């Protein structure tokens, strides 16, 4: 009897060990590394801004960071939707509280309304970054000048801003061209019969015409358009020629899918198709993030959607001409498919996505802005933003609640920047119908206090004359056996992006060696730099220069 009982107990124990717990029973994995303490201080910092408006502004809600006054601190332009957009000049002291002062722009007020998003880049190579405003109606380019001055430059650029509902943008300098190629992603054509269903507007590719000034008078249509909500020029195969990745909203397209355009110089764009290995994928595509999370030399992509986020990695069947991707989001714990706190079990709605190293441990983290479209009953109403902390096994673990970003807001676009130049990435989230959130990264959560995190390097690239900010460059930062790769890009996220220092967390490394693959494919010499510094690397410069923020 006793023997039988023992046998039974053994069998039960064996069964218990053999049968895994259901996934739903498993407690969410917690990060084992630092979780940044993100302190919300938008109003105290002087940013009192909301993104508002009717149905057309359920999407969008972005902005751009750029240094518009030459002090290298990132200033911020925020889209206002139906309301006014705003420019906020960064007055934060190094390592201190965040401080911004709103600056009125000497522009026609109607040009600053109906703005859904913005990106910054120096189109005319004059050393001042310009702003591209994505609008409901005419898209506008604001030419940057000294002291955060901006003037409308559409006519100067021969850029016909169109009348579409523009929700995405990306730019690149194609080989041999002096000025950038601009891609505009459009949403629903509201005037088309049957709108909004199946009436996605074509996207636009505006290549500069030959000449000594930027001339965008001959744009071409990227057909078909499938209601793009984010686009990004990305060198997915490290060929040196970026392709245009577009994520599309299945809510309105018919027969659409995710898109990848092959954009070769002097050739019309061509869609990668099934014959190229491109796999049919339909999602409510909202945002694109690029990051080489596994250090294999090619980028992965986080695509936000309603429900689960996709995390795409090149498949074994891929090659340099075959963009075959596999989704590893589930394996990596990065689906972020429903709220992780607050008790709402309905699916999430993801918008801006961005890889960045918030805790400076050398591992990329993934931020996802979340928020119900408006009042969609089948999706979570209380849908906190995610801060998925990269783990050493290549997976992600949620740290948003501990970090303090799990607010009951409807996130849309976001700007990840080191606003107070302390080496730790801060976060600005544009919320629909609510005030923007501005989180200062105070350091790692340690009880009630914050402690310093890993080391970092801030990198600014400089070129002369053309493409001064080296858009399209790849930055390789090597410390120990690790190489961290960053791309200098304009586009992606959700209607929002940043320009300026490229942030790289390097963990416990005190030094790093930086090599740059410039946009034309030429490699730089290696530059040796000390961590916890901001450095400036000029094309062909003998050494990296160090920059120090005002104290």
């Amino acid at each position, binding site marked *: 009897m006793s023997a039988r009982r023992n046998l039974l107990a053994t069998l039960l124990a064996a069964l218990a060990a053999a049968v895994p717990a259901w996934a739903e029973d498993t407690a969410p994995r917690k990060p084992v590394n630092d979780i940044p303490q993100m302190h919300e201080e938008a109003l105290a910092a002087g940013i009192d801004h909301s993104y508002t408006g009717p149905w057309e502004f359920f999407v969008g809600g972005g902005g751009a960071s750029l240094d518009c006054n030459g002090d290298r601190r990132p200033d911020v332009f925020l889209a206002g939707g139906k309301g006014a957009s705003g420019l906020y000049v960064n007055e934060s002291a190094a390592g201190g509280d965040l401080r911004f002062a709103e600056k009125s722009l000497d522009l026609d007020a109607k040009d600053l309304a109906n703005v859904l998003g913005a990106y910054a880049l120096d189109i005319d190579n004059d050393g001042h970054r310009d702003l591209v405003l994505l609008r409901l109606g005419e898209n506008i380019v604001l030419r940057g000048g000294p002291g955060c001055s901006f003037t409308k430059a559409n006519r100067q650029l021969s850029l016909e801003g169109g009348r579409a509902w523009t929700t995405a943008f990306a730019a690149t300098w194609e080989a041999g061209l002096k000025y950038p190629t601009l891609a505009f992603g459009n949403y629903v054509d509201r005037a088309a019969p049957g709108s909004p269903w199946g009436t996605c507007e074509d996207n636009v590719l505006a290549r500069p015409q030959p000449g000594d000034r930027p001339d965008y008078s001959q744009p071409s249509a990227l057909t078909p358009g499938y209601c793009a909500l984010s686009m990004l020029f990305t060198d997915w195969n490290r060929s040196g020629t970026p392709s245009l990745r577009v994520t599309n909203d299945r809510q309105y397209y018919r027969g659409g899918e995710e898109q990848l355009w092959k954009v070769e110089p002097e050739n019309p764009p061509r869609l990668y198709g099934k014959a190229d290995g491109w796999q049919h994928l339909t999602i409510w595509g909202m945002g694109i993030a690029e990051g080489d999370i596994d250090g294999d030399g090619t980028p992965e992509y986080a695509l936000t959607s309603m429900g689960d986020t996709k995390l795409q990695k090149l498949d074994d069947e891929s090659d340099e001409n075959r963009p075959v991707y596999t989704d590893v989001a589930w394996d990596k714990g990065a689906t972020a498919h429903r709220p992780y706190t607050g008790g709402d079990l309905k699916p999430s709605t993801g918008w801006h996505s961005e890889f960045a190293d918030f805790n400076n441990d050398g591992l990329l983290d993934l931020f996802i802005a979340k928020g119900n479209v408006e009042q969609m009953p089948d999706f979570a109403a209380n849908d906190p933003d995610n801060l998925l902390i990269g783990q050493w096994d290549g997976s992600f673990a949620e740290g948003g609640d501990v970090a303090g970003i799990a607010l009951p807001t409807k996130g849309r676009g976001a700007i990840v920047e080191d606003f107070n130049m302390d080496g730790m990435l801060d976060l600005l989230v544009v919320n629909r119908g609510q005030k923007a959130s501005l989180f200062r990264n105070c350091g790692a959560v340690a009880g009630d206090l914050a402690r310093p995190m890993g080391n970092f390097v801030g990198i600014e690239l400089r070129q002369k004359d053309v493409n001064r900010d080296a858009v399209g460059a790849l930055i390789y930062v090597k410390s120990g056996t690790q190489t961290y790769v960053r791309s200098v890009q304009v586009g992606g996220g959700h209607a929002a992006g940043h320009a300026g220092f490229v942030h790289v967390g390097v*963990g*416990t490394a005190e030094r790093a060696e930086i090599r740059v693959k410039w946009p034309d494919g030429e490699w730089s010499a290696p530059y040796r730099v000390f961590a916890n510094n901001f450095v400036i690397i000029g094309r062909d410069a003998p050494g990296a*220069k160090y920059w*120090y923020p005002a104290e």
Partner: protein
Amino acid sequence: MKARCCSRASLAALIAAILASPVLAVASPWSEKVIHEHVDQSTINGTLSLEALEALRSKGEILFTGRFTEADGVGRPFATQAIIPTKRKRAPESPFFRTAGMDSNACSGCHNQPVVGGAGDFVTNVFVSEGFESADFDSLDPQFSNERGSNHLFGAGLIELLAREMTAELRAIRSQAAAEARRTGEPVTASLAAKGVDFGTIVAAPDGVIDLGGVEGVDADLVIRPFSQKGVMTSLRQFTDNALNHHHGMQASERFGERWTGTRDHDGDGHEDEISVGDISALVAWQATLPPPTVLRPTDPAWQAAAANGSATFEAIGCAECHRSSLPLASLEFVDPGPSDMAGTLRTAEVADPAVYDLSLYAWARALPRNEKGDVLVPLFGDLKRHVIADEQVAALGNELLAQRFVERNVFMTSELWGVGSTDPYGHRNDLPTLDGVIRAHGGEGRKARDGYIALSDAERDGLIAFLRTLVIDPAAVAR
């Protein structure tokens, strides 16, 4: 009165806590472990009394002299010797290896000449390699490493304090130059000098960019890193973290723990959290409070006379331009963790109340001379600056194969000469048996003084050696 009682109670509790978490307490006599209980960092706060500091030191001494075993966590089969936590793909054939390590059982295995905490002779040389490239190969081939002698640690706390103050001075100069350039809108050139040691110049541009092309003898971040022959280690704390891993496979949590590696057993030897933050603090406390070497007063009148002449010659031929007889130190308070360390070594802001080891609690510190400003004159015979020490004709000290941490192979930090009479052989490879030999090996920036030495008469050279031989680590003087 109440506060005073609380203060006393706190002090008593602190001492009791340190004593109650002994490294060797409750150990059976036959135990093969060194660490039976880790030192609790939470007990090490604020300015320690002499009793509390001595209690902590005693823990540090046990850790410094203990021959660690597998029972303690010795072994790093799946980690290299690298300072940045670096995994190894497969375990080495032999866990102990003279090049990539592990290469010793105890700190005192090498640091023992003339007493524990001292230097070591040639047989204690270590092989310095970053431990990143071809980790499986560099463990077998010394061409991928630099061979270095073991330095002594006496006066190391004073050295680190000097470095901290010099770093603060240099950085203040940088800040002032940048601020002035911003204010005036004009470039500002500033001389980098700390404690009278010239580190070149910087040029601050109005936009905050600093031209570091004129910086000499210090890293671009202007941190004086006073430890190792190369001058590339910031603090005793950092060096201790490094060395425990390299030499013993004992990994400190503050560098190799879960926070920075995702695992509590980064080296894969089956032991988690081998060295605690408190253990490192105890080791730092022990090293930082080692008294400095002394100057021997020979009883032999001939030696006295020769040394006196040699001291004058030392100055006359320019040795003292780098081997400065002393540098002034404003504060004897050794704060641990220190201000210059970076992630992976415990930093000041990572603890609520950093420990302060007041070196003036010790008679040897109080006996150090002071200048008219009241600064302690630390008799290090060094300048905490790096120099080119080899040239085309005199290249012996440029014999390394690898640059280290951005410092070229022919560049080394000025060796502090205090204790030099007790720590032969010489040179960064410990391969020069005599002082005469190492002086003759000086090239580069040391060439002029070296040539001056060779030009001296035999008697003058002999006097110089006689002087240097008075700079000793006196076992009686450093005993407590």
